[in-house]
């Protein structure tokens, strides 16, 4: 098939050009460990404190390279999210300088950020982002939790339909952040690239982003952090945050789904008995015939 050969060739070429190794199907990757997420299942809800911690990790670590173009400051104060107050959102937005304009004189100008502004991108454009990162473009984080997954083969993909396992993306992201090691398991890693056991192809352009103790979490009343300040915890927190960014109405969706299905089950029950009653008429009809 010409088309597929062409596409396969294009895939190879783009793999070299992009400087990012593409998924190689023949190379089996380990399955990301399954994490118990608070937002999984039919009654799932985000853990607000986890989202706040994850936001802190994003802001202090990831945000220097990864944009999150679709996230507005106001989103951080919306229901079903990290639950920042309007005042906090305003104050946070005000710490950013936003380029605006042109004004009446035709000039571009900088102003303080407002809650309605989107999160400013760390780079002026994709080319600049790639150039600053050894030719590899750091992907935007707006929907990355839904844009990443790992393969679930038969019969597991069928089981997922019933168990509502939908957290492949966050499990993968969390695993990826824990997937760095000095032992490359025989994989030849070019200079400027890194080994990651969960990344398709095992060679990733992003250096290990997180280290233990790197981000300081808010302390509890006893002066100690509420959760361990470890790579493992950072990974979970930032992945949960990215899930919320990708699906800000997740809580509302599951709540609505429960109401809709509960209503439909009751309606189906009523219709079932209505149907039975109506169809019972033909029995009577013939009995009297």
């Amino acid at each position, binding site marked *: 098939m010409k088309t597929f050969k062409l596409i396969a060739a294009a895939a190879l070429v783009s793999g070299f050009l992009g400087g990012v190794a593409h998924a190689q199907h023949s190379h089996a990757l380990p399955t990301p460990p399954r994490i118990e997420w608070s937002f999984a299942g039919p009654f799932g809800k985000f853990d607000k404190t986890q989202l706040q911690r994850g936001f802190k990790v994003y802001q202090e670590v990831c945000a220097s390279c990864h944009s999150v173009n679709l996230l507005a400051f106001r989103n951080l104060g919306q229901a079903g999210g990290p639950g920042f107050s309007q005042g906090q959102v305003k104050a946070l937005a005000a710490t950013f300088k936003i380029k605006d304009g042109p004004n009446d004189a035709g000039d571009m100008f900088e102003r303080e950020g407002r809650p309605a502004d989107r999160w400013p991108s760390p780079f002026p454009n994709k080319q600049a982002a790639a150039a600053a990162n050894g030719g590899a473009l750091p992907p935007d984080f707006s*929907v990355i939790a839904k844009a990443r997954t790992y393969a679930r083969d038969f019969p597991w993909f069928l089981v997922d339909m019933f168990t509502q396992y939908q957290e492949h993306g966050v499990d993968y992201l969390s695993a990826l952040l824990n997937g760095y090691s000095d032992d490359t398991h025989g994989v030849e890693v070019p200079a400027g690239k890194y080994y990651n056991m969960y990344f398709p192809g095992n060679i990733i352009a992003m250096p290990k982003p997180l280290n233990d103790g790197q981000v300081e979490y808010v302390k509890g009343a006893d002066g100690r952090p509420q959760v361990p300040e470890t790579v493992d915890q950072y990974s979970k927190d930032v992945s949960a945050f990215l899930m919320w960014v990708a699906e800000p109405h997740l809580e509302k*969706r599951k709540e609505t789904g429960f109401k809709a299905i509960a209503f439909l089950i009751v309606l189906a029950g009523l219709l079932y008995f209505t149907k039975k009653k109506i169809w019972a008429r033909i029995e009577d009809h013939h009995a009297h015939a």
Partner: protein
Amino acid sequence: MSGHSTYVPKSAIGRWFESRLPIMGLIHSSFVVFPNPRNLNYYWTFGGILAFMLVSQILTGVVLAMHYVANVDLAFNSVEHIMRDVNYGWMLRYLHANGASMFFVAVYVHIARGLYYGSYKEPREVLWILGVIIFLLMMATAFMGYVLPWGQMSFWGATVITNLFSALPVVGETIVTYLWGGFSVGNPTLNRFFSLHYLLPFMIAGVVVLHVWALHVPGSNNPAGIDKKTDKDTLPFHPYFTVKDAFAVVCFLIFFCWFAFYIPNYLGHADNYIEANAAVTPAHIVPEWYFLPFYAILRAVPDKLLGVLAMFGSIAILVFLPWLDSSKVRSGSYRPAFQVFFWVFVANAIVLGWLGGKPPEGLYVHASRLCTLYYFAYFIVVLPLLGKFERTRPLPASIAEAVLGTSGSASAMAGSVAASPNTKG
């Protein structure tokens, strides 16, 4: 549409209107007093479910179109705008995207029911062919709809599928250029796909009207596969089948909501949350699940043109089915040998779907070839010959007898109605 034309408007205005446009009488004769075989089982509710899904898709789609922008630079983010900022936009979009899948779930059950009970046979050939046309229109609509979010799978799916037409001799390249509106998949492609994606559902609705019209000439087939003869064989559409269909639609909606609200991305592809990029090809280009059996047939054939012909042929062959099946017995219930071939056909189609999602290499290709062979053999070899050799079970004398048992006495009738699986469904 036929049926008893017994409608008499009760009001003076009703009579005035009816004598000028007898549309209430048409509705009355088609959906109120229309005599349906009394033995229809729940597989016959999928026609109603499909009508419901078509309306649902059009309603959610029209609202989505108010917010969507068909431009390569804006489409992806406009979908995300719907997901984030439009009131209940996430719900509309998930209902629409999953609704397409549900539409295909229902249509595959509907088609399988027709195949099993011989609903395509004389005198319902035109009804069946109209159904094949609806199926084709659905596929075109769904394919173009999947392109609109302009994700990676949208873009590359569009590239692969439109490229198929280039295999056609002489006219191929021209067709592809017209599909693209240029020399590659780009903004003109997206614009015309959006336009057609909006148009085709209304064409489907038009053919559905013809489909129902053609249905109401002979009336529905039924699990016994025999014609209705007396009034005892039938029940009026309303209230018996309206309430049965309503119950079935609500049950189907529960299934639909499970997907739309709890696992909305289960049937989609993660790569489609990455914006389209002509410079980066996804590792695997996979169409939506409902195209996978046909995609497997396409890839099973080592030659591009023949592969394309096999793929389109796998649907086109359905048009000839009424004349390929030589059996005079309609319902598979009375054809033991047929049942074996039929269920193998169903399993074969599911396996083809699974193979369509696998990379075209090694054993998968060989398995695809075997399954493709059986798919076509079922229509070209099995059905034409089976009718000549098989031993069928004796048919009941009437639909009433199929439901109520052979005695036909009033008391026996009353007893067996309650016991019959057909009326309880």
